[in-house]
């Protein structure tokens, strides 16, 4: 990445994230790095198991007990992210997370109102303003009549409404970084458009990390990062990567879309190499077995591949 005068709002670099299992260690993420400026949207695309969730959890400091991050550096507005208790205060305030399934994320025993108040407490605002603020956040999230939702419990809300309540909760913050995990699963085209419009209106200055396996969602973002088997395979502006993909894996992902004919990418060969896509890559050759991943750059796109 060419150096710019602007200090990026958020930058992420990690050497390895690995999980300690009953037998040996398993590397979940390796040599991933990127940076985001204020208001920029980055889509992290990959199949299940590509390491996208671990990426998000490592930023939030919520990695599972047997998973550790070795090496690397996460920075927000130029300073390194703290850990432990200090990171906990940042969560919900500067670091905001929108989960995949809103209904499961909300606390089942507290009303929407109580949960909004819990989040508003983080902003150190006077308590008497809470009712008005809560209604305002719900209106921001697209509820025309906040009064209808305020005293409901999460199980009384439909899936879409629950998702919008989690957005309202996230809106009770001064977010600098927003992480959304597969936020548009189950939504149709109109729902997706509405979601992104909401995101832009509520969080104009936050850097946004959108985890998805849906290319149409990636198309709405500014930049794209393609993960496979825990490694970065391609990155660049979404216009460039999605219209002219360079890496064979990105090409296979795009070809698997229904609109492009749902081309399968079956396993073509046995063998393990440094490249996580080796077994299914239609363009792999003998050199891929022991070759190292080389970085190629064309314009604003970068990709890592064993063969040219």
């Amino acid at each position, binding site marked *: 990445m060419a150096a710019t005068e602007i200090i990026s709002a958020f930058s992420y670099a990690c050497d390895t994230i690995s999980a300690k299992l009953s037998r040996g260690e398993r590397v979940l993420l390796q040599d991933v790095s990127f940076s985001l400026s204020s208001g920029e949207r980055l889509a992290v695309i990959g*199949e*299940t198991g590509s390491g996208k969730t671990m990426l998000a959890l490592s930023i939030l400091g919520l990695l599972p007990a047997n998973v550790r991050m070795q090496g690397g550096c996460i920075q927000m507005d130029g300073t390194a992210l703290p850990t432990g208790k200090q990171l906990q205060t940042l969560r919900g305030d500067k670091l905001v997370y929108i989960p995949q399934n809103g209904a499961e994320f909300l606390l089942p025993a507290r009303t929407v109102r109580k949960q909004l108040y819990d989040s508003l407490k983080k902003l150190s605002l006077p308590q008497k303003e809470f009712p008005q603020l809560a209604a305002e956040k719900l209106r921001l999230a697209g509820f025309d009549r906040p009064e209808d939702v305020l005293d409901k419990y999460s199980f009384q809300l439909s899936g879409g409404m629950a998702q919008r309540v989690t957005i309202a909760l996230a809106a009770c913050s001064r977010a600098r970084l927003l992480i959304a995990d597969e936020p548009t699963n189950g939504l149709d085209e109109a729902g997706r458009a509405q979601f992104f419009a909401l995101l832009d209106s509520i969080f104009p200055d936050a850097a946004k990390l959108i985890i998805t*396996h849906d290319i149409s969602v990636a198309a709405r973002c500014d930049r794209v990062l393609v993960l496979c088997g825990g490694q970065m395979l391609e990155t660049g502006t979404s216009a460039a990567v999605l219209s002219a993909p360079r890496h064979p894996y990105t090409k*296979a*992902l795009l070809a*698997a879309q229904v609109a492009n004919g*749902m081309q*399968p990418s079956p396993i073509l060969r046995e063998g393990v190499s440094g490249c996580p896509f080796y077994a299914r890559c239609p363009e792999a050759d003998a050199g891929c077995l022991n070759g190292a991943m080389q970085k190629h750059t064309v314009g604003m796109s970068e990709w890592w591949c064993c063969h040219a």
Partner: protein
Amino acid sequence: MLEIKNCCKSFENQTVLQDVSLTIPGGSIIGVSGASGIGKSTLAKILCGVTAPDAGEIFLDGQLLVSEKSNYDRRWGLAIQMVYQQPYATLDPSQKIGAGLRELISYHRLTKNKQETEKLIADILAQMQLPSKILAHLPRQISGGEAQRVALARCLLLSPKLLILDEATSMLDVSTQANLLALVKAQMLPNGGSVLFISHDRALTDFYCDTVYAFDEDHRLKEVRA
């Protein structure tokens, strides 16, 4: 091949299926689409013998399978199999994958001896693009895509005439979905079998299926695209 005639079903005064008629010819992929809860899964459950219809008849290859008066013929109905939406839901959580496959093969006496069994298992794993080490794993130790392929393998071992996919790919990512659906097509159609593909994703059903039916608000089935 499969004929559904005037099927009706209601649960507790709520109509779920109203006068549903459908013919599924051999070697075709039929899509059934509609909003959630409209009755698509209920139709699948009636075809598999999990629920009984309140009215109507279903014929498989000309022979009566189930009707409001006669019970589901389990032996004849073995030719209809289903893959569910939840990948892990159909696998016994305490049973290893290999044990499950061997149980199926020995229960239905698909092979004569142990060698043939192991060869059959190796063949089906190769067709499903699953590694052989998966046989020693428990369901919770494999990925969602692998679990769906195991469920598919179990269905295919019985050489079904009709394979029902009930939202079988909605929990999978796009590449896994593409791979699974290509596998299904390659395994079922060449043998004259058919697929009943249930999904709320219209773009997907329009692309994948030969004919698409949809449920309207009255819980009736209508053809929407041929």
